């Protein structure tokens, strides 16, 4: 069969089956589809309400039309949309800054040892806690707010940080603080994965500076740029809890974003169709960004084991002295920036509630543990137990369902087109804002008597975490050495045995999914706030309840924030290297 390919006539020969026919029946073609049913059932907790919201957005009093989208002409909505776009720009800037820090810290292992814990801690802390910490730091009273006190001491006066315009400084600082560690850690993992032989070849070839960045680092890190970009931009557009707690009530209009505006219009008794239209716009923005970001997530099957040449030189080129100094000059301030808000929270919590309301964290007046007592009285312990139950059960449910579906997508023999469609659907579902399904779900739970029960929150958390878990695990499964899976399949082993074998190489991804799902469910505020009820009492709702009288309850809020952060911080610190490996699996060349 001569075939003309790239100017060459190639003789391509097919393969015939020879010998005696093998007796047996064909495999059941519907079986793989049945194995995807649990995922579909769980995902329908999101899919059905999303469909309801979408239909609602187009249903007007006069029939079907675009009338509800008139809500966008409202000045408030326009401003919220603009602010959301500004947040996207902030996310992009943060990615650039994170990349710069990772590049500077790259190969300075001592610096990384200092940076790692301080970078991880903010990522483990919820938006609500971050908002509380930055609200304390930027308190307008110089006797309480650190920044105000420092600026006043230097310039004899200070702007009111929690005022129109300046509130953005506080919000952006809090957002960057929360996400910087994630960005730097993932970039660093990508940089570490650059093959040593390539690093040496590049050095020998004399490639430096921008050319080296363009030829080597940027292309290699492209998939990681995709993951980070997707996560951060979507987080920026979905921003809700951080603004809600950081911006005082009067300032919230100045910091309004789409997600918050939706909540405000819903609460204000706005027509449900108009709220649905607003949610749909938010969803469309996020979905478009996600599908664009998918280019970075489009990863391919890993190299077969035997094709990976062993690295002859275990070590890579050492950094120059200038590079070390520069790394330290940037790394130490970054480290301080990351650690400082945690310190502020801790020290504020160690003051009595009255003292915390009157004095700053540095004051020696009113030291004591009574803020923790006040937090316990506010229902902290019950909320802790509730959070633990919700997070553990949701994580287990996600793992149980996602592992099988991810395996099915990676190795299950589904048609390629179907696999691609499911992957795109997962990406879109993974980034869907809560606002898109909150209202119909709240109604459904109220109707079925599940409102306020933990089971409803477990279901929503599991359904919301499932798409991301499937995406991550699918890449991990597909990255498992093909020969390993083939061997298991050829051995006519049961599927469960195959899964067990594959799982051996996918440990980091499984750990990453479990840890991240747990931390997300634990730190959640938005789902609990918009869908759950007082009966479920997640931790963040208790924190939110206290934060509403921030000026008088700063100590209680700080104590509750510290206690609520212990579990996710410990978990992430313990598993961070594995989580990063799991997140970047399949991106290594």
């Amino acid at each position, binding site marked *: 069969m001569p075939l003309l390919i790239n100017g060459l006539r190639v003789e391509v020969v097919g393969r015939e089956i020879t010998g005696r026919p093998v*007796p047996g029946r064909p495999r059941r073609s519907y079986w793989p589809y049945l194995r995807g049913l649990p995922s579909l059932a769980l995902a329908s907790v999101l899919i059905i309400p999303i469909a309801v919201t979408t239909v609602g957005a187009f249903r007007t009093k006069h029939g079907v039309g675009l009338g509800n989208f008139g809500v966008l002409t409202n000045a408030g909505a326009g401003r919220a949309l603009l602010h959301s776009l500004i947040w996207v720009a902030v996310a992009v800037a943060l990615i650039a800054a994170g990349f710069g820090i990772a590049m500077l810290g790259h190969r300075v292992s001592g610096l990384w040892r200092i940076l790692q814990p301080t970078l991880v801690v903010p990522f483990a802390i919820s938006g609500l806690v971050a908002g509380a910490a930055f609200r304390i730091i930027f308190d307008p009273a110089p006797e309480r707010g650190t920044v105000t006190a420092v600026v006043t001491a230097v310039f004899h006066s200070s702007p009111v940080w929690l005022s129109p315009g300046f509130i953005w400084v506080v919000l952006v600082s809090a957002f960057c603080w929360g996400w910087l560690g994630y960005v730097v850690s993932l970039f660093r993992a990508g940089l570490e994965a650059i093959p040593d032989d390539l690093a040496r070849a590049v050095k020998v070839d004399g490639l430096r500076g921008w050319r080296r960045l363009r030829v080597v680092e940027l292309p290699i890190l492209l998939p990681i740029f995709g993951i980070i970009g997707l996560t951060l931009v979507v987080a920026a557009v979905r921003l809700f809890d951080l603004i809600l707690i950081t911006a005082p009530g009067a300032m919230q209009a100045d910091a309004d974003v789409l997600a918050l505006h939706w909540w405000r219009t819903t609460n204000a008794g706005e027509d449900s169709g108009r709220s649905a239209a607003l949610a749909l716009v938010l969803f469309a923005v996020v979905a478009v960004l996600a599908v664009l970001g998918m280019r970075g997530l489009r990863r391919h099957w890993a190299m077969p084991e035997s094709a990976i040449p062993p690295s002859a030189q275990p070590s890579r080129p050492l950094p120059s002295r200038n590079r070390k100094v520069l790394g330290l000059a940037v790394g130490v301030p970054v480290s301080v920036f990351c650690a400082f808000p945690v310190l502020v929270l801790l020290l504020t919590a160690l003051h009595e509630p009255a003292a915390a309301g009157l004095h700053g964290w540095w004051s020696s007046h009113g030291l004591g543990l009574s803020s923790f007592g006040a937090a316990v009285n506010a229902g902290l312990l019950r909320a802790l137990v509730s959070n633990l139950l919700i997070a553990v059960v949701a994580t287990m449910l996600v793992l149980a369902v996602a592992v099988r579906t991810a395996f099915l997508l990676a190795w299950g023999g589904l048609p390629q087109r179907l696999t691609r469609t499911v992957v795109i659907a997962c990406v879109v579902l993974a980034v869907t804002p809560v606002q898109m399904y909150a209202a119909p779900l709240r109604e459904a739970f109220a109707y079925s008597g599940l409102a306020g029960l933990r089971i409803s929150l477990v279901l929503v958390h599991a359904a919301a975490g499932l798409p991301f878990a499937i995406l991550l695990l699918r890449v991990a499964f597909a990255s498992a050495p093909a020969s390993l899976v083939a061997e298991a399949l050829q051995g006519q082993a049961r599927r469960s045995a195959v899964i067990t074998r594959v799982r051996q190489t996918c440990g980091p991804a499984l750990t990453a999914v479990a840890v991240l799902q747990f931390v997300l469910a634990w730190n959640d505020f938005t789902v609990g706030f918009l869908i759950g009820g007082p009966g479920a009492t997640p931790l963040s709702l208790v924190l939110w309840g206290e934060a509403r009288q921030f000026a008088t309850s700063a100590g209680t809020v700080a104590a509750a924030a510290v206690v609520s952060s212990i579990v996710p911080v410990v978990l992430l610190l313990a598993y961070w290297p594995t989580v990063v490996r799991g997140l970047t699996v399949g991106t290594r060349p």
Partner: protein
Amino acid sequence: MSRRRDRRLGDLIGVGAVASFVVSGMASDSLKEIIGASGGGLVAWLGVGVALTVLWLVLNVPRWPRGEHRRPAGAPTTELGASAEQAEYWQVALGSDVGGMAAAEWFDNEEPKLRKLVARHAADPAAVDDVAQLCDALEAWYVRQRRPAELLDLSERLATIGDQAGRRDLKEIAAARAATAHRLAGDLDAANRELGRSAGLAAHGRAAAALKARRQIEWGLANLARADRCEPGADFEEHVTNARDRLEDAAATLPRNDLAGATAVQLGLGIVALYRQDGEQALDHLLSVAARARATRDRSTEAHAQELAGVAAWSQDNVREAVAWWQAAERLYADIDEREGRGRCLQHLGSAALANGVVAGLLRRDGESGQAVATRLLKESARLRGGAEGHQVLQSYLTMAQDGASRPPPPSAAPTPRLTVRDLWRWVRRALSQRGPRPPGR
């Protein structure tokens, strides 16, 4: 449900039947009291026993027809029986890394004798199973060697044997093999006729699914052969689409444990992707085949997949990788003495050296010119394939190489391979875009 599970279920039901009879017929009064069975209850137990016995019989029936075709246990008593067993043994080894070379040597030496045995016992209905076994082994050898005339002759003999013995299944296989022979000989209409005949003979036996899948694969390959005869355009696309559909049907029809069938289908889908100039998708299929073949120590299939991976790499303009894949495949073919495959790989390398100076530079020995490299490789290919005649592509490239061999190579034809910024950039891009297609040993 598998044969073993059928049998296990049947045995359980048999035990149940016996238990029911025990309960109904021989149980003491006290036992009746314990199980609460009255007179009516006993009748019910008896009914259950009868039903279970019938079920046990039904589930165990498939064992007996199978036994009819099986030679009695123990050493074969005739020369035919011994040769059939030996042929089956070497057929399994053919192409594998366990005795693949020895198997090729055995077939090379024994093939005339095996053919004589088939001819001698063709009219003997008592020897039909042994002759069929010999035909199976010879078919594998002829297909591997690409000898359509011998394969056609063999299929005709098998059809005659099947006719005389009243074995419809043998006639069905024979027609499918005849189709392969016709396709290899280039007679696609005859191939289609034979496939139709085979489908008409199809029965509902235990191997029905495998035979149906074999016909689908053959139809797919015939469609690809038809595509070769068309200029790029609607007809070409139609044939390639038909080929893909046939292969996908085959994948859905194959028995669960037909590993050779599964790899053949996936390899075929890889070729379809190559016809569509989709190197990336081709590699997805081919690397999976290579991994499966490696796991089952099937060197022949692994080499075939690597050979095609080279074509896929070439289609992606990855010249160095294409060369590495072809060299790796050539080594594997050499390990099992598969000369036809080895010859094809050398042909790919030789023609690529003629078309691309970088390839010539990679394959050059002692300051050879590009044409000299190509001529050397193509001549070796022709030697392994029993001459260039009958191999249109080889013939044309060999002529081209020999005509130009006396001319000095153009200065850019054979650059010294060294790492450049451009190479690095492409290496990085490839590392990102093609995670899998890294040829072994690089």
